[in-house]
């Protein structure tokens, strides 16, 4: 009996000694800043930064292997805080939000066939590019909705995706998910948008959608030089520049929309002029 107790106790002691030594020998230096940075990060673990989770990004920032503003969700505020922890200067730009550059919904855009299948834009896109006559437009099946970790996208009853700017963190997940490549990240302060992505020539675009950009260039002429540029029959906003709101009135198709002060899309994604 006693022998057994002593043997077991002895084994236990030997084992713990081994552990104690191992802990010394294999100890990993953890940077105390890692924890602080992790604290500062939003903790959404959304992966938008490209790393598996917030703690991994924190570690990389502390090691100097990632930038202090690599968390798109935290944005400016978090970047500033991390800059403080790391003892570096931060003077960043402004918050980006996503926008769907299409206003062709079930009422104003033509369909080329009746889609009956999986409720997913990528699936529909694999079939003749989806049911919309316009091959560039929003399919309205909400693959972006599923991809957004922050519930910032809705499919409107008229069949088009809309981004709720206040909830959007600019993480860009939707940009990646959309098979039509029509979601763009733009500075949150910009209010004027050309809600079309069609590179079809004017006449063809007009046939397929009542609110399509027909490439007439009226807006280009009305806007400051370089603020709106033509790209293959499509007028594209240069978001680096300020554009006066009244430029929107020039558009004969009603494709250009100006959002209200909260930058919510209440009046957007609507019909023609």
């Amino acid at each position, binding site marked *: 009996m006693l022998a057994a107790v002593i043997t077991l106790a002895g084994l236990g002691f030997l084992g713990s000694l081994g552990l104690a030594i191992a802990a010394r020998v294999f100890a990993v230096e953890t940077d105390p800043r890692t924890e602080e940075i992790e604290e500062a990060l939003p903790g959404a673990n959304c992966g938008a930064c490209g790393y598996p989770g917030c703690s991994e990004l924190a570690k990389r920032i502390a090691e100097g292997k990632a930038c202090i503003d690599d968390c798109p969700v935290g944005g400016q505020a978090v970047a500033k805080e991390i800059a403080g922890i790391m003892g570096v200067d931060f003077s960043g730009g402004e918050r980006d939000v996503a926008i769907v550059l299409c206003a062709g919904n079930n009422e104003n855009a033509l369909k*080329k*066939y009746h889609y*009956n*299948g*999986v*409720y*997913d834009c*990528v*699936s529909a896109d*694999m*079939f*003749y*590019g989806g049911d919309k006559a316009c*091959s560039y437009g929003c399919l309205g099946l909400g693959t972006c909705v*599923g991809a957004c970790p922050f519930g910032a996208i809705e499919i409107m009853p008229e069949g088009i995706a809309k981004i709720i700017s206040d909830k959007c963190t600019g993480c860009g997940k939707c940009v990646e998910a959309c098979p039509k490549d029509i979601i763009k990240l733009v500075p949150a302060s910009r209010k004027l948008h050309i809600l079309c992505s069609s590179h079809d020539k004017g006449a063809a675009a007009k046939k397929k959608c009542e609110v399509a950009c027909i490439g007439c260039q009226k807006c280009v002429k009305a806007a400051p030089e370089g603020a709106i540029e033509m790209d293959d029959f499509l007028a594209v906003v240069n978001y680096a520049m300020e554009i006066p709101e009244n430029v929107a009135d020039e558009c004969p198709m009603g494709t250009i929309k100006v959002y209200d002060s909260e930058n919510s899309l209440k009046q957007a994604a609507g019909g023609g002029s």
Partner: protein
Amino acid sequence: MAKGFFGGIHPDYHKELASGEPVKVMPLPEQLIVYFSQNLGVPSKPVVEKGDEVKKGQVIAEAGGFVSTPVHSPTSGKIKSIGLHPSPVGTEMEAAVIIPDGEDEWAEGCDKERDISGFTPDEIKNIVNNAGVVGMGGATFPTHVKLSPPEDKPIDILILNGAECEPYLASDHRLMLEKAEEILEGASLFARAINVDNIVVAIEKNKPDAIEKMKNLTAGRDRFRVEALGVIYPQGAEKQLIYAITGRKVPTGGLPMDAGALVQNVGTCFAAFEAARLNRPLIRRVVTVTGSGIKNPSNILARIGTTFRDIVDFCGGMTDDTAKVISGGPMMGIAQYSLDSAVGKGTSGIVLLKADEVAQFENNPCIRCGRCLAVCPMNLDPSAISIFAERMRYDETEEYCVMDCIECGSCAYVCPSKRPLVQHFKRAKAEIRKRSKKTG
């Protein structure tokens, strides 16, 4: 004796609509829409421009790599335009619109009868490749690639696929009745190319006349054997066919050559015969035009590039309540939104259905009835895979072997919840391919 395989279904076949119709030659239409890429694998590269004059059989697109084939002009004429057109495979595809000059004049060197008895395996592969021959059962995989197995994968059996298990279609059936000798000659070339002398002609029992015809023709020829297969869908799918004939299984992710077999559709054999013997590239094929939505169900010999509109007109037009036009059969075919689609090398049939015959998908939840598991010929769990796909959990669809799915549609056919199962699987496969490309 042929074996069965696990699973499968017994759909309504409706073969009688067209199987008794001899193949009619479709007259030269006013325009042809010829897609520049007509094979699975690497797309071909266009070599003509708007305004060019072309001769019949002239190359209008070159092979874009090894797993690729050239495309030839189906007649002589002028290229009116080049642009995107709806294609039977479900995409908008770049094509040349050719206006025939009516002369139908062959390019230099084409259409010359020659002796094929002396061709070496390499010559055969080259001929088949240069003639743009692809799998004509619908898969359009370049035939010369199938004829070039690596040395460590010896092939000991050539199976001629005349199963034609898709409902409605009869193009292979007609070809076997009308061009049996040519098919066997084409098959002999394939056998020589891969050095096998065991050739099995596999035909489902619902084509007794074709079985008899082939039996008579092969009588006394030791290398050939005719197998009458049970009537079950998808008997004609490569893996199921190989199992039925040889009892060998193609491993997961593998090819028929991994089971020592080569499968060639009977139409492909015929195309190879014409390429070798007559020096004619692949510019026409037999198309079954059938279903309750067409006035005169027919089998026609149409040039590649003939629009569905011209074909429908040629077959008497649509009936009043035609609701759906499918390229291929109703199980694996692809619904068309426009009759401007044109015949491609893989277009085995055009099926036109009335509204009450068209199944609607409903995206209902899976009720876990298990029917799909009972019919899946690949032994998959379509229920689980579709649920993962719905939740965008594509890694799990891969773990559940979605890549093995042959997209036969048996599961969707029996699903009481009318779930668009195959579409889920196509989507999952596309995602998995995309991811594996990204990670290298």
